[in-house]
């Protein structure tokens, strides 16, 4: 076979696979959503439960992402700059949320914060409901999106080295001054990249939130749960419209990732 035929064949198979598995299905959902015109889409978007689900998603992101960002930067500094026993173990623990099924995350949270869980009685006496309510959804969302900021910041910190930080310290800068003026400006794009990934994961979380939320309409349904709810109630337009909203947010994430990757050199994101 000629070289040309070979290359053409390889390309066709690779791109064909991507088209059938990724592109065509995603394009189809946009087509399906808008095939009846804009009126049904508008009414699906403005349905009270849809609006509520949207704002609940925003609320979960607004709580989980800042917490995980602070935590991620702290852990990254601890793992890269700290010197203590059990560092490797801590690194493994941070990655745990990647290896655990979201459903299992939900179950683990129930076993601690649920009615029959470790803290069940104590929480009930305080009148706090975690499971089947928003606090549980916050915990689930924060759990699954925990590792991203740390994972993206660690390599940047490693590459940065400690020269500039040591120079600042020698010149009399306090630990805080060094962090704010030397370290943070140098790692900021890595952190931002991690924040983008954290946000995407937090917006899209389904399994863990599904277990702990109780899926109460208009109360504990964020957008992905709302998609499932509409789908199971044979409301195709409602399901497709909400799915398209999430797909658009995912595409925005991809654009952000690519802009950031160009800023932080040619790094392939994982």
């Amino acid at each position, binding site marked *: 076979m000629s070289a040309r035929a070979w290359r053409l064949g390889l390309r066709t198979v690779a791109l064909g696979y991507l088209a059938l598995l990724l592109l065509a299905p995603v394009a189809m959902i946009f087509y399906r959503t808008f095939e009846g015109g804009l009126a049904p889409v508008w009414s699906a978007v403005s349905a009270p439960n849809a609006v509520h689900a949207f704002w609940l998603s925003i609320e979960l992101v607004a709580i989980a992402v800042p917490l995980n960002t602070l935590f991620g930067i702290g852990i990254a500094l601890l793992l890269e700059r700290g010197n203590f026993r059990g560092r490797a173990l801590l690194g493994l623990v941070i990655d745990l949320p990647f290896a655990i099924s979201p459903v299992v995350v939900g*179950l683990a949270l129930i076993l601690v914060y649920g009615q029959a869980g470790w803290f069940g009685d104590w929480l009930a006496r305080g009148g706090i409901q975690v499971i089947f309510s928003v606090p549980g959804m916050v915990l689930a969302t924060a759990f699954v999106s925990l590792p991203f900021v740390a994972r993206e910041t660690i390599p940047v910190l490693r590459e940065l080295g400690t020269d500039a930080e040591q120079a600042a310290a020698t010149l009399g800068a306090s630990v805080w001054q060094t962090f704010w003026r030397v370290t943070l400006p140098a790692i900021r794009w890595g952190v931002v990249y991690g924040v983008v990934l954290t946000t995407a994961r937090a917006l899209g979380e389904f399994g863990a939130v599904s277990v702990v939320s109780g899926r109460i309409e208009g109360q504990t349904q964020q957008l992905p749960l709302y998609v499932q709810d509409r789908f199971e109630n044979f409301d195709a337009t409602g399901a497709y419209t909400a799915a398209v909203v999430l797909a658009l947010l995912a595409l925005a994430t991809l654009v952000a990732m690519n802009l950031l990757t160009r800023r932080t050199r040619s790094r392939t994101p994982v």
Partner: protein
Amino acid sequence: MGIYLSVLVLLPIAALLAQSTKGGTAAFWREVSNPEAVAAIKLTLAVAAIVVMINAAFGTLIAWVLVREELPGKRVVNALIDLPFALPTVVAGVVLLALYGKGGPVGIDITFTRASIGMALLFVTLPFVVRSVQPVLLELDLSMEEAAASLGASRLTVFRRIVLPALAPAIISGVALSFARAVGEFGSVVLISGNLPFKTEVGAVYIFSQISNEDLPAAAAVSVLLLLCALVVLGALTGLSHRRSRHVR
């Protein structure tokens, strides 16, 4: 930070382990040898194994085309590889159903079949192998391949004897990550598979239904077993990948 990590991750994981070992090995064994659980675990591991093999082949091919071929719009294609990571899993399921489900334009219906589970898993795990092979391929020295070709080696021989050994560690580590992800996957599968016990019910869905039935011991035991499977495969393949990469260099 310690409190945050404990409240969020450590205590829940400890509670899960405590729950699954509460009744001792006998109780654990009883839960995981429930016929429905066994069927779900077997199905999960089998589909995940098939899916990672397809990923190994197509992921390597896609990485190859993205690195070595000139394509119009290559940057866009490259960016789209990450779509499954950015797209919520439940949307992945709905998207596949819109095209390949009942009443779809292509006239096939994959809903409630085992093939649909495979397809959902292929969708969500697509980026792993591509993204781990790509950087290695970029760094690969072309002169070895050129030397082999000039000595008369065929295209396939060059790939098999020179390129593949260099890529193997990256492929293996991509496969390991895909497998861990596939074993626990829930969102993309739950709408598409129909969740028929003994037929299309995967492990994560089985756990979910046990939680809904308030049978937490059963849910915890199967959770721990599936988690162990994922971690053992992840550990073994990562070890293999490290060994091979040392060997090559």
